[in-house]
């Protein structure tokens, strides 16, 4: 795709670029050994989107009744025929394989989930074998904790654990856990408890499964507090899987707590960062409920993704417009975000009914290449409008640049090379349309439909942009309201300005530029949750910018906002207005 002449920056400029363009994530260090599992985001199919939908005909025998051996095998065949050659690999059975059509659970004599004989008349191993026979991998699903129906008065024996019964693996007060409180919380202080996890792991490994989605995991899944802390469960699963001797990918769900990102990374290969993408309505998904949430919720997680563990944005249901309930533009944007965020790419569509546009989205080799290649996940660089630009700097010196229009009407979206750290010309390739659009100077602007997107690879031919940095805590600045300087170990020079709330202001003084014009200034900030701030120059009209969450109050992130400056000295003010604004570490202003 890219010739060696694609990138023609002088070496010195390249160095400056790498130093200045810190807002754009750069490739992970190449010397770390590749992990054996999840070296790349996994690709495949999951049953839940169709199970959860009220789309006519999908679940004729009641809610979630889509899940059957016949349907799984039908999808397996379709995936092998249409998608396998593009890298799709996992066929994942979601919730309900041990429930009857009335959603009543079945358990074996050891309190383990037992396949429902109507859904899976030949058992789970037979399905895995059939999947493997197509050269694909098989995935299965379990909820966290000991399901209430498995408890059996506490007297149910635990498999391969002499003397252990279900009463010996849970708390004496039978406290519940997981996102639905559908299980008793496991007490890992008790010696029998890990043996229960081992028994479940042995069961699915014995059947030949290659993937487990552990669901309802907390902190997360809408729950917090000790009762819902399932870190020990996840750790036990990690050990239990190792103990089986089988390679099994462990994926966690849902809305995992970012405060425990280190745990999820340590014990699993992926974690759902958000709630279900499905709408539980007459289609598989809908834009507002809740595909569009991902643009707000993903940025805080970006830095946690990498080989061995990825941010899971949930199913990619873009294969059939009518069933998906999305416009073509929405489907492309959905696929774009998943690809550039390095989310696993598993679709929940009916693979036997992909429409031609859906097939083209799911099988675009350039886009899949971004997701599966060495490119780091993209991060929003101008995220404060419905018109957003996300970018990542690729190991080969190019940039992945995605334009999004999240508004409900068409709009022009501009990517400014300054937000990538350079100025001048760059060649632009349109990945979705497989087209070189030519050379663009300083910016590229495209008209995007409502909820639309474009996905480009931008190869710079220009020069690095020089920035001048201004620290928020500088004594030259003016603080208003409650704003104050605070220590911040992650910040440049170890300090920031915080307490920007209810009228708090921070005014940078003597911001000097040579020429009047609109500049993309880089704002380095900290914001545990998404917050807005009014930015103005020289006392003029302010523009409100919503900055994405950085995930916690110890992490600095940066975005670009446009500010109109005059030649010479300027002031730039950050004003909380009547709300709460992020803490500000520093700004970097292009010198030209």
């Amino acid at each position, binding site marked *: 795709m890219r010739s060696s002449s694609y990138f023609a920056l002088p070496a010195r400029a390249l160095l400056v670029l790498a130093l200045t363009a810190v807002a754009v994530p750069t490739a992970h260090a190449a010397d770390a050994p590749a992990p054996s599992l999840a070296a790349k985001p996994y690709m495949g199919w999951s049953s839940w989107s169709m199970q959860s939908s009220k789309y006519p005909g999908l679940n004729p025998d009641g809610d979630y009744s889509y899940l059957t051996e016949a349907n799984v095998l039908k999808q397996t065949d379709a995936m092998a025929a249409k998608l396998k050659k593009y890298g799709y690999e996992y066929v994942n059975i979601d919730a309900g394989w041990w429930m009857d059509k009335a959603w009543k659970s079945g358990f074996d004599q050891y309190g383990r989930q037992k396949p429902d004989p109507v859904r899976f008349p030949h058992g789970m191993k037979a399905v895995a074998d059939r999947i493997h026979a197509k050269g694909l991998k098989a995935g299965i699903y379990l909820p966290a904790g000991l399901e209430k129906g498995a408890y059996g008065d506490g007297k149910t024996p635990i498999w391969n654990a002499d003397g252990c019964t279900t009463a010996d693996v849970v708390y004496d007060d039978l406290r519940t856990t997981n996102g639905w409180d559908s299980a008793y919380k496991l007490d890992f202080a008790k010696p029998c408890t890990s043996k229960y996890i081992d028994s479940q792991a042995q069961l699915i490994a014995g059947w030949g499964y290659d993937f487990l989605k552990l669901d309802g995991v907390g902190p997360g899944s809408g729950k917090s507090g000790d009762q819902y802390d399932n870190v020990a469960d996840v750790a036990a699963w990690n050990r239990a899987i190792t103990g089986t001797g089988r390679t099994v990918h462990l994926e966690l769900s849902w809305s995992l707590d970012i405060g425990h990102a280190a745990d999820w990374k340590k014990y699993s290969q992926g974690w759902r960062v958000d709630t279900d993408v499905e709408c539980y309505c007459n289609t598989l998904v809908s834009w507002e409920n809740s595909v569009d949430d991902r643009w707000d919720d993903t940025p805080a997680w970006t830095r946690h993704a990498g080989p061995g563990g990825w941010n899971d944005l949930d199913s990619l249901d873009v294969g059939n417009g009518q069933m998906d309930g999305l416009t073509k533009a929405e489907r492309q944007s959905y696929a774009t975000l998943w690809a550039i965020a390095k989310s696993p790419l598993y679709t929940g569509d009916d693979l036997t009914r992909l429409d031609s546009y859906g097939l083209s989205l799911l099988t675009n080799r350039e886009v899949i290449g971004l997701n599966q290649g060495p490119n780091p996940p993209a991060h929003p660089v101008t995220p404060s409008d419905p018109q957003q630009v996300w970018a990542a700097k690729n190991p080969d010196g190019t940039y992945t640049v995605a334009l999004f229009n999240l508004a409900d009407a068409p709009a022009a979206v501009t990517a400014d090379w300054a937000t990538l750290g350079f100025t001048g010309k760059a060649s632009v390739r349109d990945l979705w349309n497989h087209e070189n659009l030519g050379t663009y100077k300083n910016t590229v602007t495209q008209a995007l439909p409502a909820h639309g997107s474009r996905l480009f690879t931008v190869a710079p031919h220009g020069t690095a942009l020089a920035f001048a940095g201004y620290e928020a805590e500088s004594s030259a600045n003016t603080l208003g309201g409650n704003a104050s300087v605070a220590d911040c170990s992650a910040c440049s020079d170890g300090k920031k300005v915080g307490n920007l709330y209810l009228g708090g202001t921070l005014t940078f003084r003597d911001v000097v530029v040579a020429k009047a014009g609109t500049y993309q200034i880089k704002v380095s900030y900290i914001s545990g949750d998404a917050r807005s701030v009014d930015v103005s120059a020289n006392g*003029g*009209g302010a*523009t409100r910018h919503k900055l994405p969450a950085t995930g916690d109050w110890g992490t600095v992130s940066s975005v670009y906002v446009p500010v109109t400056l005059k030649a010479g000295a300027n002031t730039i003010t950050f004003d909380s207005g009547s709300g709460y604004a992020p803490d500000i570490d520093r700004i970097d202003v292009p010198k030209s």
Partner: protein
Amino acid sequence: MTPAPSRRGVLALTAALAALPTFTATAAPRRPADAPALDADPRHRLRWQAPADEHSMIEQGLPVGNGRLGALASNDPGREVLLVTDATLWTGGLNDTLDADGQFPYGRQDFGSFTLLARLTVDIPDHDLSAVSGYRRTLDLAQGVNETSYVRSGVTYRRQIFASRPDDVIVLHFDQSGEGRYTGSITLEGTHGEEPAVSFGAALPNGLRYGAAIAAYGSGGSVTVEGTHIGFTGCRELTVVLSGGTNYTPDAAAHFRDPSLDPQQLARTKVRTAARHSANTLLRTHTADHHALFGQWDVSLGTSSAEQRSLDTWERLRARARDGVPDPELEAQYLQFGRYLMIAGSRGSLPLGLQGLWLDGNDPDWMGDYHTDINIQMNYWAADRTGLPQCFDTLTDYCVAQLPSWTDLTRRLFNDPRNRYRNSTGKNAGWTVAISTNPFGGGGWWWHPAGNAWLCNSLWEHYEFTASRTHLEKIYPLLKGACEFWEARLLTTTLPGISREVLIADSDWSPEHGPLDAKGITYAQELVWTLFGNYCAAAAELRKDAEFAATIAGLRKRLHLPQVSPTTGWLEEWMSPDNLGETTHRHLSPLVGLFPGDRIRPDGSTPADIVEGATALLTARGMESFGWANAWRGLCWARLKNADKAYQLVVNNLRPSTGGSNGTAFNLFDIYQVEQGRGIFQIDANLGTPAAMIEMLLYSRPGHLELLPALPDAWAASGSLTGAHARGGFVVDLRWRDGKPTEARIRSAGGRTTTVAYAGSSRTVTLKPGATVTLKGFDR
């Protein structure tokens, strides 16, 4: 009546016989012989980088129109959508009843509503917006052409959309730069339940017939009718022609219908006739026609920066609001956009209502009707001021055609006991209107006694601008009938502290504000005072009805005129010292004597306390209101020579509208916030704001011109105004630099003598009709 008609009588008779339907067969248009294509002047080119969402057409669709037949265009590469209107496609009817509370019914079936004629869709599936690059679209105000271009797989595709008056069709022309091809389909649908078809015709429940038709032709591929739509395959070029209309005819005696007219058949004839010509021929014919009007007038308000010029129209609006930096070329474009709407929306058919010629559905707020208590008047304040006197004629023709019905309704229903505004004198004569009027002689909402005076005053001002005797003769019966109405209505009363009796208006509602029943409201007193003066001048000019004119002159002398409240310090609105309404109410009804009236002048000729009271009231009304209300405020501040405030109100109207907020939409339409989160288009501010901008540059009344009465700093560096009509019958070209006039050319359009003033000094100019004088040396 003399038995043998005079020459004038013959002319009047001819005019009556010539009440042709607005959609009618026309002679073959004159084609400009070898007219070169006009160069696109970037000053007059609005530019956007995104198409419209077809569900947000009123904010994002671009308007085209030939004065009668209009459309909003989406300009989406893969799916061009046109929402097509004919100004006369109205539901409803005469509506000659009153509800129990004395109001005219005001529903979509009784009073009626302006509705869409058709929806045209051109689908080009391969040109999905997500698959094209370099998208842009423009609206060339000078040529009247909407153009879209984009690149798909290396080929540049271009489409032009225009509404031609000479050919009476809307044209869509698609071409491309190289080896590109168009494949897709064209669908025409009615909006009143018709199935898609290449032509359709039907009648509304009120009996109004309507119809529309399309034709398409291409090169290099095939264009074929495929059942209900037209398919095209592999075309290098494609032209789509649309026409349509109704059998509306401006004749009350015929109940506003021409039963012999088949609109569907006529539309088919028109598209077939137009389709004999190349798209280029149709384009040249159209641009020559459009530019003949557009080019009659020009303005420059100064020079914008290169950075401002580099932005598209929406970005410029946003930057203007965000940075607070004047963008004189954008501000001039906004003004010219108002003129564009006037040319596109007000020729040869009905006048511009609340939304002009443009709709996005069949349920416009307030029916898209004619509101006679500010909005229709404001729609025409810019016509003469911006060199488009021809576009004023739709208003005149409308009033003339409605007059028999308005007179009849007044006779039958004004003194109805249910009407709270009936004449307590028991007398009844002449005519007036309701607050809302429709095109079928009917009214909606309350009776509006002073509405007749305001309409007449607008018609009279057009005479002052143009000195057209033909126009004066047309409007004379309206003025006379309105005077007869007021002669019957005025009450005699005595005011405390004043010995003589005065005349006051009977019970009335100062528009949409305060008590429903107040006698002697300032609004009516001022309008009737002006009406009476205008009538006397008209009668004298036409040498008519000397005795009646003398009576009216006598009444005028006895009219009470408003006082300043000792309580509020404001000019009174209700003959009461108290503030009986909302301080910041949108209407400026009590200031109608300041603008558009001319009684209150800050030049020493009006008692100082009246000027101060008017200024205090205007100040209290504030600077933040709906678009039309800001425009009116701006005009009043211009009259008071307060450039800063007048300009700020213009700037306030230029604020980008988001989420339905008051301000200017993506397509430059003015948005009126009906409620939180919902705004609608109202065209009045698009026309009233330009009027305010001109009033800041040139004030006129018969016999007096004032140059740059309220020139704001933002425009002071340099500028010019060319072809501006001035009251008194003059046309003015004006240049200025550093805040002062450098040259003024005054041409007589019938006017004889006028003073020309600037900054306190003045000189007198006397000209023969057609003659010109150039004045310089104002800066000495």
